């Protein structure tokens, strides 16, 4: 990134893990126009970069992401979100491609929830494939608190992940759902103490780096296809995906390793 430009998003690629870190701790990692631009670029790059096999999304400081920068919605010259139409356009033209990319890129995406995820921040956390959070983290569908409706895909994701009851309660009350409760409901995979979050996420990410990448990509394709099709269509799609996977060196190697392990026992 060019010097002199604020780094709202920091990207670090190491040993197959692409870390994308929202970096506006003084604003609880709120997403403004510049953040959107940098985050969109970082996510696109993470998808394209063959050296990145697993993506981790996290935030600097106390928050994961406090949502859209509301000050930019009302102030002149902020982020170009001054009219209602701008609000819609930003969702359609900027957030939509980014969030879709997270959910469909052919590699695992882990949200390391170092703190609260509110509004569009929760949308990002929920668009990731796996979530690991600290006990201080929470999910907050804050939209209703400023008279807005849910966005960033949560109207689709939350009812599927936790049922309509949980989704509506969050959308109607605008109250936070703690990491502990979210874990109980299956929205968060694991809750670990803050000082262990980084190690826990790193361990999982490192493990996934060693997993067969095409097989993981296929799993993601199958799930995304299944979420929009009937049971029978999903079975058929799986059968073809499995056939393609059965041609892969990953399968040949996997079977060999399996048999070798067995003969050792």
């Amino acid at each position: 990134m060019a010097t002199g430009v604020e780094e709202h998003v920091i990207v670090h690629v190491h040993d197959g893990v692409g870390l994308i870190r929202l970096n506006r701790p003084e604003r609880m990692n709120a997403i403004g126009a510049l953040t959107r631009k940098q985050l969109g670029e970082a996510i696109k790059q993470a998808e394209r970069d063959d050296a990145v096999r697993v993506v981790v999304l996290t935030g600097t400081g106390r928050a994961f992401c406090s949502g859209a920068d509301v000050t930019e919605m009302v102030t002149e010259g902020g982020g170009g979100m001054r009219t209602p139409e701008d609000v819609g356009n930003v969702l359609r033209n900027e957030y939509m491609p980014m969030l879709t990319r997270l959910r469909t890129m052919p590699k695992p995406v882990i949200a390391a929830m170092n703190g609260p995820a509110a509004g569009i921040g929760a949308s990002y956390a929920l668009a990731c494939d796996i979530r690991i959070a600290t006990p201080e983290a929470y999910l907050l569908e804050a939209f209703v608190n400023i008279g807005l409706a849910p966005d960033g895909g949560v109207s689709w994701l939350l009812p599927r992940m936790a049922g309509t009851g949980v989704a509506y309660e969050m959308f109607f009350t605008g109250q936070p759902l703690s990491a502990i409760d979210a874990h109980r409901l299956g929205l968060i995979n694991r809750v670990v103490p803050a000082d262990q979050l980084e190690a826990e996420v790193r361990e999982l990410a490192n493990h996934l780096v060693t997993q067969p990448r095409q097989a993981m990509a296929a799993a993601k394709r199958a799930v995304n296809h299944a979420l929009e099709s009937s049971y029978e269509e999903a079975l058929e799609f799986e059968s073809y995906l499995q056939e393609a996977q059965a041609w892969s060196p990953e399968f040949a190697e996997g079977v060999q390793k399996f048999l070798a392990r067995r003969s050792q026992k």
Partner: protein
Amino acid sequence: MGYEQILVAVEAPIAIVTLNRPKVLNALSPELIGEVNQALRELDMDERVRAVVLTGGAKVFAAGADIGDMAERTAVEQLSRDQTGRWAGIAAFTKPLIGAVNGYALGGGCELALMCDMIIAGDSARFGQPEINLGIIPGAGGTQRWPRTAGKYAAMEAVLTGTAITAARAKELGIANKVVPAEMTIEVAKRIARQLAEKAPLALRMAKEAVLNAFDSPLAEGLVAERKSFYFLFSTEDQKEGMRAFLEKRKAVFKGR
């Protein structure tokens, strides 16, 4: 005959025609269309072949016509080259034509796909008519085959906005028969072609003709034509074979007679 812009592989009882200009995303030059036309004419005559797969390969079906070639042409030039007229032979193909579509099928590429009898779409497939963005309209059947397939409103959306649709949406609109993982698209299309190749060739031909006739004629005429073909097929050896095999609980072997 030898082809330069397509590959033709006969794997009796089927054949696979592959658009082969990967460097330009299989842009549809008049030559390429001419070759597809010629290949299908030959395959129509080839008795070893009972069904054909048409594909652009693993990555892209065909991303439209050669814009560089068309940009400065006049109406008269376009007319005299009869670029779109070269497509007539493709529509006249009498055997089942299965489209295997991966990646972009845009403009002429989409129109070519819509000339197939069935379409197997890879999950990477995108269908669209972007001509409107260039100040023209589809010229190889797009404005006619879209509404006949997907209905007026979906057709208007495609042709007026120029926005491409996903494989899943194409399935929803009835343009794609199936959505499969992209690496399996051609294989699945070949299997369907082989499955069709086991059926009575004359019946396949009459069935295809009758269904296509539904788009061109009033119901009463279509029904008359259908009935005539139905009766006609009772004069074929394959009808006798088919019904006897059914009664004898064995698999029919059809000869196309």
